[in-house]
């Protein structure tokens, strides 16, 4: 069992955002969290990734209970197993494309970065500063950064919400292609019902 979530509740400032969420994901089974804006999708992704703690309930990744891990164990778990495509992308503006991609590697694997850059149609942009990229380019860099270290899970938050049909499909294909190459499981959150069909499991949150 990759993710095992039991009775998770999440409250921010007296507002209950997640109410008793139960979730079971097997390795290799992609998952889509579907719900309207403000429903708590990002909050749940953060909890799954160990970036925030639920108010109550239990989250397990590969049978490791997050609450039982120390801060540095959790850091290491994320570094080794997770990749992130954030909703706001969050590339580091003053770093170049290849530096952003290499950020999650302790030692930059130039060949791997080069392959990714080619795969994602970013050839020639390696040295460009992230702040100078177009939004589409930035999104592809974010995907490259999320997969460069061959993670077990790729978290993608609203990867398609700002895109038209064609581009939405392209981006999802990129993510799934990369996931397949490294045998990763995709966990995505969106309010975009267009991509529903691409996932093995869907959890709708209201």
């Amino acid at each position, binding site marked *: 069992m990759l993710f095992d979530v039991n009775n998770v509740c999440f409250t921010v400032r007296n507002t209950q955002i997640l109410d008793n969420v139960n979730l079971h994901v097997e390795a290799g089974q992609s998952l889509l969290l579907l719900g309207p804006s403000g429903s708590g999708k*990002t*909050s749940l992704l*953060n909890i799954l*990734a160990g*970036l*925030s703690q639920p108010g109550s309930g239990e989250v397990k990744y590969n049978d490791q209970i997050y609450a039982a891990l120390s*801060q*540095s164990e959790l*850091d*290491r*778990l*994320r*570094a*080794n197993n*997770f*990749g*992130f495509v*954030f*909703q*706001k992308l*969050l590339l*580091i*503006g*003053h*770093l170049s494309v290849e*530096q952003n991609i*290499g*950020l*999650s*590697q302790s030692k*930059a694997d130039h060949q791997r970065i080069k392959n990714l850059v080619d795969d994602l149609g970013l050839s020639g942009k390696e040295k460009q500063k992230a702040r100078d990229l177009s939004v589409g380019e930035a999104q592809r860099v974010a995907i490259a*950064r999320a997969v460069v270290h061959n993670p077990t899970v790729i978290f993608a*938050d609203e990867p398609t919400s700002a895109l038209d049909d064609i581009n939405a499909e392209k981006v999802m294909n990129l993510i799934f292609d990369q996931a397949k190459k490294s045998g990763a499981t995709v966990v995505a959150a969106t309010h975009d019902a267009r991509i529903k069909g691409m996932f093995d499991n869907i959890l709708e949150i209201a």
Partner: protein
Amino acid sequence: MTDVSLVLSSLKSRWLNSLLSVFLTAFGVMLALVVIQFSQHVQNRLSSDGQGIDIVVGAKGSPLQMVLSSVYHIDIPTGNIPYDQAKKLMKNPQVKTAIPLALGDNWKGYRIVGTTPEYMKHYGAELKSGEPWHKAFEAVAGSSVGLEIGESFVGAHGLVGHGHIHEEEKYQVTGVMKPIGTVLDRLILTSLDSVLNIHGQESVEHTEHDHGHEDKHHDHDNHEHEEHDHDGHAHEDEHHAHDEHKHHDHEERVAPEITALLLTTKSPIANMNLPRTINRGSTLQAANPALELTRLTSMLGLGSKSFQALAMLLIIIASLSIFSGLAGSLENRMGDLAVLRAIGYSKSRVFKIITLEGMIITVSGTALGVIMGAGGFLVLKTIVPPLQSSGAEIRFTSDSALIICSVLIAGFVAAMIPAIRAAKVDVARQVSRNT
């Protein structure tokens, strides 16, 4: 992607602010180092030049001026004293040694001092080569004067610069002293008579007209010529430092005067009593160099303290600028830092990254400050002649090390506070909030 290249890239992205912090740090360090170097130099020179001299006797005037002019050779003398009065004092039973000094001329700014060999002996000065002076117009040069044995030169009137030149009388260099790190390094020593004669005064030493080599080890005690005994009051109101050019006619010579007497006494009690007795008289003034020195250093100390305060202020401002540079940019970088934390950078690694950023500024500012401090000191040395002539040099002392350490610590503290905040970034909030 190493942390160092991440940090360098971040510094480059806000280069204006980084540069400002570097320069502020550098200026603070530079100022502090120069002030320390300078005051240490002055302190060192004052104590080594003043070594062992208990009492200075000269003409009435400012005692500090008298001490400065006769012990340190920096100020102009307060005037002259009749030689026979000085001589009486030299024979005082409480006096252990007495060194007469006659000033008045210089060669290229180096003072020509008429004295006795006792002067060299007192400072432990030795000849590097050549021989001491044996007769009038033979001279021994200090190590930094730049005169060689056998060279002849003429003195210029006055104690600095280019006064009237005594062309009639040429000095001959017979010896050069080893460098000893005292004021003697930059003096030209000769017999009392040389200086007296050139200013049209009577000789006071036996050896004046001796020419033979058998005289090498002649007696340097200042025996007087009976026939030149004057009452000493004839020149009472001529308190000039041999500054009137007299005719060199032997017939018209006037009573000899010297500028100062450097005394050592036989007991500490004499140190107290003798000056009191001397000062009670009408013409002579006695001062304790140690006391004058304390007064001077407290004056200098005040000056250097205000510079020190300025340096401190600069360093504090530099630290604040490092702090504000880091803290100010932190708001915009929280997203970046959240990314780092999310992809597995530990809190301590993020802390180190931000601290490293501050320390790179601090260290490069300090390094630049050291270079500028050394450069500044060299520049000061060329524009402040006394520094040059007193052999000021850059020395790396524990005080300089202390300054550098405290700057580094200040920089670290300045970087630490933003770094702690950075390490505590709320990752979940940063990746989910809209701003």
